[in-house]
């Protein structure tokens, strides 16, 4: 039954049974079939991701709302949680430990609250990033979408969370005598840079976490170390006066400290540029672009492997 056709026959009249002898790959090539679940090119990947922007937004907003949907006070917790957080830190570091060396109370309280909120933004993006793939395997194994949607969606959720915190922050700043001024506009570019940085980091952590879920257990310790090293509740140059200078420089140029300082500078009247390391905007931008791009490419490289159990 398998009739052999002579080579060079006109393509139109070739009997289909000629397919019989073909290997799977050749047959696939002949009919334009592609490997299922193959990784798209970087440019195509960006396009796919852009096509899914509504899903990314909807998913992040859904996660945010779902968070407090069982609570009686509901969405009020979006604001109440950061407020309580700020109070706790004020109680411990402002009143009990007194880490405000070199700062007046009017500067220190907004300084502390900014630090806590801005660092929490990075911290929660990273923590959510670690579990972005490993915690959503069900979703990854059920539906098709560029997997980067998940970590990006999680850091968007944190950004929206931060915007709620910003309301609290504005109230605190005004309460301690820093009134809205043009310099407050500088918060926008600083937050954009931090968001890109966070997303890059979340993408990196998502890939690492998909392979090694144990990272989720380890991250709280790493993040806490990072928090204490970034001067969330104290001024780095003042605290490290007696130590070799390079230590303070390293700490000051770490991205978390940079973004915190930029926002403090924008927000607080008594926190002038003398507190910032030189070239702080450029360093912030470099961190943001570098980690953002590197994280994206690193994540994309393993696109076809997410979902393996």
């Amino acid at each position, binding site marked *: *039954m*398998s009739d052999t056709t002579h080579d060079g026959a006109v393509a139109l009249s070739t*009997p*289909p*049974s000629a*397919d*019989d002898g073909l*290997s*799977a*790959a050749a*047959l*696939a090539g002949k*009919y*334009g*079939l*592609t*490997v*299922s*679940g*193959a990784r798209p090119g970087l440019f195509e990947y960006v396009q796919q991701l852009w096509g*899914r922007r*509504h*899903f990314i937004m*909807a*998913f992040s907003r*859904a*996660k945010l*709302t*779902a968070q407090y*949907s*069982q609570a009686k006070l509901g969405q009020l917790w979006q604001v109440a949680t950061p407020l309580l957080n700020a109070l706790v830190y004020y109680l411990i570091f402002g009143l009990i430990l007194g880490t405000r060396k070199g700062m007046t109370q009017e500067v220190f309280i907004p300084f502390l609250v900014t630090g806590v909120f801005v660092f929490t933004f990075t911290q929660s993006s990273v923590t959510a990033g670690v579990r972005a793939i490993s915690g*959503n395997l*069900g*979703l*990854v*194994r*059920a*539906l*098709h*979408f560029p997997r980067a949607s998940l970590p990006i969606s999680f850091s968007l959720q944190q950004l929206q969370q931060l915007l709620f915190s910003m309301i609290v922050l504005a109230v605190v700043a005004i309460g301690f005598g820093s009134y809205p001024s043009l310099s407050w506009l500088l918060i926008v570019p600083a937050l954009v840079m931090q968001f890109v940085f966070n997303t890059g980091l979340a993408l990196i952590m998502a890939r690492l976490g998909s392979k090694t*879920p144990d990272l989720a257990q380890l991250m709280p310790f790493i993040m806490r170390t990072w928090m204490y090293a970034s001067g969330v509740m104290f001024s780095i140059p003042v605290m490290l006066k007696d130590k070799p200078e390079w230590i303070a420089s390293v700490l000051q140029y770490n991205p978390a400290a940079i973004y915190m300082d930029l926002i403090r500078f924008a927000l607080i009247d008594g926190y002038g540029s003398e507190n910032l390391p030189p070239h702080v905007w450029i360093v912030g931008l470099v961190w943001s672009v570098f980690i953002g791009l590197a994280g994206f490419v690193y994540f994309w490289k393993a696109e*076809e*492997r997410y*979902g*393996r*159990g």
Partner: protein
Amino acid sequence: MAEDNTSGRIPTVIADDVHIVYRVNGAGGGKGSATAALSRIVRRGKGEARGVRKVHAVRGVSFTAYRGEAIGLIGTNGSGKSTLLRAIAGLLPTEHGKVYTDGQPSLLGVNAALMSDLTGERNVVLGGLAMGMTREEIRERYQGIVDFSGINEKGDFITLPMRTYSSGMAARLRFSIAAAKNHDVLMIDEALATGDRKFQIRSEKRIRELRKEAGTVFLVSHSNKSIRDTCDRVLWLEKGELLMDGPTDEVLKAYERETGK
């Protein structure tokens, strides 16, 4: 016979010696205690990681599916049917071998994208977006989805969080969302018969519609009746291996003989 079957047919899915291996953490070495985990790490380095157990779920399955075919997958529990479907959909990476497909096959189901804390309304939108529909498409089909699910037959339930639904209601909404989209290569994984009798009839009808629109259909089911009703070709998987591949009647007869029905 086989050749006749293929003549003039355009292949849509080609599976070429597909192997799928699951790796399970923390399943090795008997006791799940901390010391056991520690000793696993210490003794590591001798080749394969000790703590990880491999489950070879699909072993070297090859077949070619053609446009217009409806293919049933049968086999006992744990024989690798659902795993194979996910590999065809490109959702589970293969360990070895390749799956070639025409376009993007999709698995019927959005359960994982839905959130029980959100209202049914928002879940319809979220589920639709997750399946790759545009906002306009969802807006157009929204009413259809809600009507099909029959959620609002007993009052305004669509604006309540999904966690307040009965299990039947939730299953109906999930199916309605999933079935709202048309697919090129459609894959359906069991458990279609959810909800009450009325809804079952409605969903079977919708499946038939989807089948007509789709190029190729894969159906995993334990109900020989629904396989007989919908499929013209059946793959029989056992322990991850392709035991038989042929016309529905032939394979089902052999399967029924084997399983002692």
